[in-house]
């Protein structure tokens, strides 16, 4: 690896138009953006968004790209509404089709996967942390790739599973992708879904279907979730250098 990066082009702010808004769960909406030019990116990367008030005040946040690089003309960002947030409530309450929003990206150089990287791959997502992982899955499906991939996905209730129908359909293809949802606040029982937090047993079951040790593991969600998940994986013998983490929020 070279010791100095090659000279880089500045990532500029571009104006994108909202072409669709879709409610995914009670707290998550997907926003679909059209850019003047199609933007190449690697699954796992995110976009920075910027809002400007009339007095010039600006707010910026980052959101992972949900849409696959191959299939979409439109960039999808799945945004969870945070009660005490400044930007996510604006998206949920005010942003509408036709609005123009400044975006910059794609950003990210480590929490990335494309089919050329190979597998097996273990994905571990909590809540809206599943978004970059779904991007990787959509990319894999778009390329007809069969690298073994397992997604362990923890959400509060069945209604909070983002992309639930799509993930089930992908797992029913039996093309090497296995789906392990688990719900932490569902009274249950529900068919096909475990109840309770992600634990050693669930991660062990997911690793078992991959048949060989994963080449890379991606863990994404709130910090406490990632910390517990990563530590459990280390306890199960996964090498620390193979675990990549993305921590949302505090």
């Amino acid at each position, binding site marked *: 690896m070279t010791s100095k990066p090659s000279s880089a082009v500045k990532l500029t702010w571009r104006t994108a138009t909202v072409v669709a808004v879709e409610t995914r769960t009670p707290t998550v909406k997907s926003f679909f953006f059209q850019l003047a030019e199609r933007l190449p990116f690697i699954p796992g990367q995110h976009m920075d968004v910027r809002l400007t008030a009339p007095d010039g005040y600006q*707010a910026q946040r980052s959101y992972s790209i949900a849409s696959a690089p191959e299939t979409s003309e439109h960039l999808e960002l799945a945004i969870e509404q945070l009660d005490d947030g*400044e930007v996510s409530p604006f998206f949920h309450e*005010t942003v509408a089709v036709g609005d123009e*929003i400044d975006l910059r990206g794609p950003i990210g150089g*480590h929490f990335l996967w494309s089919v050329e990287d190979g597998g097996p791959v273990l994905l571990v997502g909590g809540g809206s942390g599943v978004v970059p992982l779904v991007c990787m899955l959509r990319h894999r499906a778009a390329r007809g790739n069969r690298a073994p991939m397992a997604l362990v996905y923890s959400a509060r209730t069945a209604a909070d599973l983002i992309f639930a129908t799509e993930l089930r359909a992908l797992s029913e293809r039996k093309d090497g992708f296995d789906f392990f949802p688990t719900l932490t606040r569902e009274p249950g029982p529900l068919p096909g879904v475990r109840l309770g937090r992600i634990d050693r047993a669930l991660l062990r079951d997911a690793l078992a279907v991959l048949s060989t040790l994963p080449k890379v593991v991606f863990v994404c969600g709130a910090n406490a979730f990632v910390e517990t998940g990563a530590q459990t994986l280390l306890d199960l013998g996964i090498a620390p250098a193979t675990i990549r983490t993305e921590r949302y*929020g*505090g």
Partner: protein
Amino acid sequence: MATRGFSGRGRASGTDPARLPPGQYLTSDFPVLSAGPTPHVAREDWKLTLQVGPRPIKSWTWGDFVRLPITQVTRDIHCVTKWSKFDTAWEGVSIDNLLADAGIEAPSGFTLAHSFDGYSTNVPTEDLIGGRAMIAIAYDGKPLEAEHGGPARLLVPHLYFWKSAKWVKALQFTERDEAGFWELRGYHMYGDPFKEQRYSGD
């Protein structure tokens, strides 16, 4: 151009706007971010080394290190993921005192900090001396937690916080500015939050 319907009502009131770098928001939390799992380094295994190129010139065990003069600072910190936190209180050994204990002046213009988990980040040596940086071992009056980089992390608060390498184990003085982990992956070589130097081309 203004974003339709956005008034910025949610902005933190009473904040001196000059104190918050462009694109940042103020938080009272202390978010944890990292590229991988948290390493756990026991104090009995801890060592800090100064190197000139590949050559180690001085090492401290934990026992040696905590006998060095301790400095207390209160500083604002700024993460490239957009959050800023004001008035954070740290204790540790300033890089000036580290060099003094090693009996040397800063050997070269650039420094590459190395961490126990394989992470690295580059900082011009001038940005580490003259009271600008320390090896921090306590935050907010308590020993630095592993999640926040304990037992010891580099603290360079005037640059984006990815430069404040957690779990620091070595400072390597280099002839050229050698890109560290995030610098090799699209992030800025210097990282001044007030110039919004987040990404490589900024």
